[in-house]
């Protein structure tokens, strides 16, 4: 019979393990866990971070020794990097003269259409004698310069060389003759935040560079940045953390378990329940959402602190009467376990009511995990324990503690209530929350400084700050974008803005293009043609060849035409169309925020966006929602306790230690200057969940024996603290936040549970051991 249940356990575990490997779709993209936009700009940012162009690219800085052919090297490197699996596109940031020629040649078809943002003002000015004289002089100088070879064919299509009026705005300093360093962008098909998959690409880029550089006698150096580089570094750090935390937690858990129970068999039972619960939770969450996020396992995995309570508590109670059937011992405490489980699930369900996408997964994961742990404890554990219980004393020193609490309980209770009230009044209001998500990221200062140095060398653009135009149609968005262009040009003239990169003149609204054409048409009469001929004659230019401009059939430049051309790569990250909205971005160089905001203030559909600001705003919203929902969850837990005990004061007394423990931990961390954020709140929820369970166990004391109940609670508290303390050894600040919230919180909760809920009247029996 015993063997049958062991077989059941083995079969169940094998089936769950098989389910994990076959059914669970893992995702490691951090942004999918943290972000979901509610406004167009946050939606844009969230979608771009999750899918996108902002995160999928590596930025390579190639530097060469003096006299090295860096353009040739970059060309060959681009070709070998393109062959890496997962790389979709590789291109040089500094367009070569060949590329510039190609852009100019294609855009010369649109010289007139894109001529000016204010055609009604600029076209009449263009057709004055002085202006035409200047233009013919400019054409002459170009024909006599180095550019003559490739500019000459342009004149056939664009006799006024109108493209020269705005071609510099196409990319400005991105076109370099022969640079000492060069930027290369590598775009991948994988989300940049998927550290595991990006690690392969990151290593392949390095290997390919080294192989090629060896052929060039090591003349070049490579520096790399981009979201995937950070993701790979985080991946390595997380892998190292997991290894470290796993080893430490395993050693600590085994030591604690052997110290308390002196039983390897007991450790196997509890491990089986924990692993089965996590496996079941993983399968259910993945089936429900279509994927399981790695962070859900990481944070949800800490639920072992809760799940472990049920089997340990049950084991200690079963050991109290080893001669009886363990099933009856567990049946006796089952209502307490169930209530504890339900209150914990309520806490997590409350958090799932926030808009934080990660919390939704966490709620399902926690509910299924806790449910599985409870069911296995209730229906399988007794059968596994049957016949293996031996009596052995393990008081864990609870008797002197209970005697102390019994003697001074009233005094301690008042003291703690006063202390709690003082914390509520003086410390709680002054708690400072930080919503800077970067503080939850691993310490990567060297990568960050490398990133800013590379970006400073390669681009004049300030990362993460831009102007966003949002409109119901793309045409309207283009028109608004043109207004932004004019506004930015004005402050650039006043030197309040270094540079900016707009979608114009890569693309202009149809309305503007038509207006330019109609203005030019109005001036193409004999009088103005004679003025032009006169200007050409002054410079010795051929009137015969240039005097009667014949533009090719004029066509409006549309988004489709641009997207079909190779030039789309220069601007494709500057616009997005989704859900009936068109969004256009203008990248900004060094600027004064207030001046830029002021400049676009009268353009209703334009907004100044700070990426970091949006993320922090999202984090603030999540945190506020979490606090609200946390309070709501506490109210529901209180209601459940009230329904169970049918007594307001008992319900309050059971909830009090958990709330006070959380309060003490938060206040202490705040007092120590720790920046408190989302992860501390999740830790706080764990503290409350665990401590409410303890308080229920103490209050109900279903064994009718306080020392046994306390031994059970202390045993599970020791394993919980050991598990969370091991998280404190991780270098990841998020894991540290959980560790230093939960571990002390559980200890304080246990102590406060004794003070507030302990009832000294219950009897005392001998402890037992399992073997």
């Amino acid at each position: 019979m015993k063997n049958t249940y062991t077989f059941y356990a083995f079969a169940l575990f094998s089936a769950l393990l098989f389910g994990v490997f076959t059914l669970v779709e893992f995702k490691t993209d951090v942004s999918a866990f943290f972000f979901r936009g509610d406004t167009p700009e946050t939606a844009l940012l969230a979608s771009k971070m999750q899918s996108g162009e902002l995160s999928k690219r590596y930025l390579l800085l190639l530097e060469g020794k003096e006299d090295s052919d860096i353009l040739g090297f970059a060309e060959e490197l681009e070709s070998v990097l393109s062959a890496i699996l997962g790389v979709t596109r590789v291109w040089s940031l500094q367009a070569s003269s060949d590329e510039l020629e190609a852009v100019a040649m294609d855009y010369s078809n649109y010289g007139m259409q894109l001529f000016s943002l204010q055609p009604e003002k600029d076209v009449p000015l263009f057709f004055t004698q002085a202006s035409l004289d200047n233009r013919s002089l400019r054409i002459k100088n170009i024909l006599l310069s180095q550019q003559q070879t490739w500019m000459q064919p342009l004149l056939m299509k664009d006799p006024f060389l109108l493209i020269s009026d705005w071609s510099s705005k196409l990319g400005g300093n991105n076109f370099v003759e022969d640079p000492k360093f060069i930027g290369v962008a590598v775009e991948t098909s994988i989300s940049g935040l998927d550290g595991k998959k990006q690690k392969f690409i990151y290593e392949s880029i390095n290997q390919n560079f080294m192989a090629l550089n060896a052929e060039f006698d090591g003349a070049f150096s490579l520096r790399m940045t981009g979201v995937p580089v950070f993701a790979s570094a985080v991946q390595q750090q997380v892998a190292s953390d997991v290894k470290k935390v796993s080893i430490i937690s395993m050693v600590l858990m085994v030591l604690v378990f052997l110290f308390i129970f002196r039983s390897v068999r007991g450790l196997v039972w509890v491990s089986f329940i924990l692993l089965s619960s996590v496996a079941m939770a993983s399968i259910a969450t993945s089936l429900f959402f279509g994927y399981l996020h790695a962070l859900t396992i990481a944070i949800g995995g800490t639920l072992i602190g809760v799940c472990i309570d049920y089997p340990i508590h049950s084991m200690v109670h079963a050991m109290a009467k080893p001669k009886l059937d363990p099933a009856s011992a567990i049946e006796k405490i089952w209502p307490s376990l169930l209530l504890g489980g339900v209150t914990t699930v309520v806490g997590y369900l409350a958090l799932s009511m926030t808009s934080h996408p990660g919390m939704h997964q966490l709620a399902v994961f926690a509910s299924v995990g806790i449910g599985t742990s409870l069911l296995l404890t209730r229906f399988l554990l007794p059968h596994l324990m049957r016949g293996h219980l031996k009596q052995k004393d393990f008081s864990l020193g609870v008797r002197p503690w209970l005697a102390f609490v019994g003697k001074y309980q009233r005094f301690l209770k008042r003291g703690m209530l006063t202390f709690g009230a003082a914390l509520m009044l003086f410390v709680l209001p002054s708690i400072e929350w930080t919503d800077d998500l970067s503080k939850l990221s691993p310490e990567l200062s060297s990568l960050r400084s490398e990133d800013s140095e590379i970006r400073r060398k390669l681009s004049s653009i300030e990362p993460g700050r831009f102007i966003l135009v949002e409109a119901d149609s793309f045409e309207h968005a283009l028109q608004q974008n043109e207004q932004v262009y004019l506004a930015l040009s004005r402050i650039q003239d006043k030197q309040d803005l270094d540079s900016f990169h707009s979608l114009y003149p890569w693309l202009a609204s149809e309305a503007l293009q038509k207006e330019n054409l109609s203005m030019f048409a109005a001036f193409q009469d004999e009088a103005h043609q004679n003025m032009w001929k006169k200007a050409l004659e002054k410079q010795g230019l051929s009137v015969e060849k240039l005097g009667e401009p014949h533009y090719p059939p004029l066509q409006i430049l549309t988004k489709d035409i641009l997207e079909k051309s190779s030039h789309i790569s220069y601007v494709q990250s500057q616009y997005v169309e989704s859900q009936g909205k068109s969004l256009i971005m203008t990248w900004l160089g060094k600027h004064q925020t207030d001046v830029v905001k002021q400049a676009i203030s009268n353009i209703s559909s334009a907004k100044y966006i700070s990426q970091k600001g949006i993320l922090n705003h999202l984090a603030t919203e999540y945190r506020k929602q979490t606090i609200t929902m946390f309070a709501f969850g506490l109210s529901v837990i209180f209601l459940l306790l009230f329904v169970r005990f049918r007594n307001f004061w008992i319900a309050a007394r059971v909830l009090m230690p958990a709330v006070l423990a959380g309060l003490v931990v938060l206040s202490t961390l705040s007092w120590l200057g720790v920046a408190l954020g989302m992860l501390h709140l999740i830790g706080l929820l764990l503290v409350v969940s665990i401590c409410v369970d303890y308080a229920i166990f103490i209050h109900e004391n279903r064994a009718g024996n306080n020392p046994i109940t306390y031994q059970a609670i202390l045993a599970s508290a020791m394993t919980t603290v050991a598990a969370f303390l091991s998280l404190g050894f991780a270098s990841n600040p998020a894991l540290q936040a959980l560790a230093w919230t939960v571990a002390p919180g559980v200890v304080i909760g246990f102590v406060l549970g004794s003070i507030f809920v302990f009832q000294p009247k219950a009897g005392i029996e001998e402890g037992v051991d399992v073997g």
Partner: protein
Amino acid sequence: MLSLRLFKCLAFVLGFSFSSLNGFAASIDELLLRHQEALPLKLSYTETRYITFFDQPVLTNGMVYMTTQDFILLQNKPSRLLAASNHKRIWIYDELSQRRGSRSASGIKRHDPALYVLTQAFKSGNAKGLQQQFHIVQKQQEGKWLLFLEPKTAQAKKKYVRFVLKGPQGEVASDIQIEFTNGNKTTWVFNKLTDDKHLADEIKRLFKEARG
């Protein structure tokens, strides 16, 4: 079996071909060697540019400095423009636009291999690269040697129609004519200057100016 007559025919043809080839190669080598031996050189030049969009040819003039290592072109009129190159790099300074730029020799080799091998051939005396890039025809006319270079590669054919170099018998080139595919044409006429006492210093100064 190959008949004796056919064998003699083949031998004649092959022999003729080889002797022609050898003779041709020797003359090119000789020509290039002559130029190399003449180095260092200081030349004044006049350039006449026939540009499609100008009614009249545009005249420029300046100086050329050439050593086995360096090549400098200094345009004095209509505006000052300086191009200085060694075997690794070329620096350009345009005084009119105040623009300065540089490019690696291998970059030029990649971008304009025809022009690169032409200058290298005259500096190094090696005809191999020249023969790879151009169909070469050599003629003599009115006591002058003429060298016709027509591009072989698609890249060069896109830009150039031909180069024609001309010089008195036994002397270095005095005229170079370049015809471009866009209809433009330029003719350079050189005059060897004997005032080369301070050539090394001058080259050094011009390099410094070009590099900035």
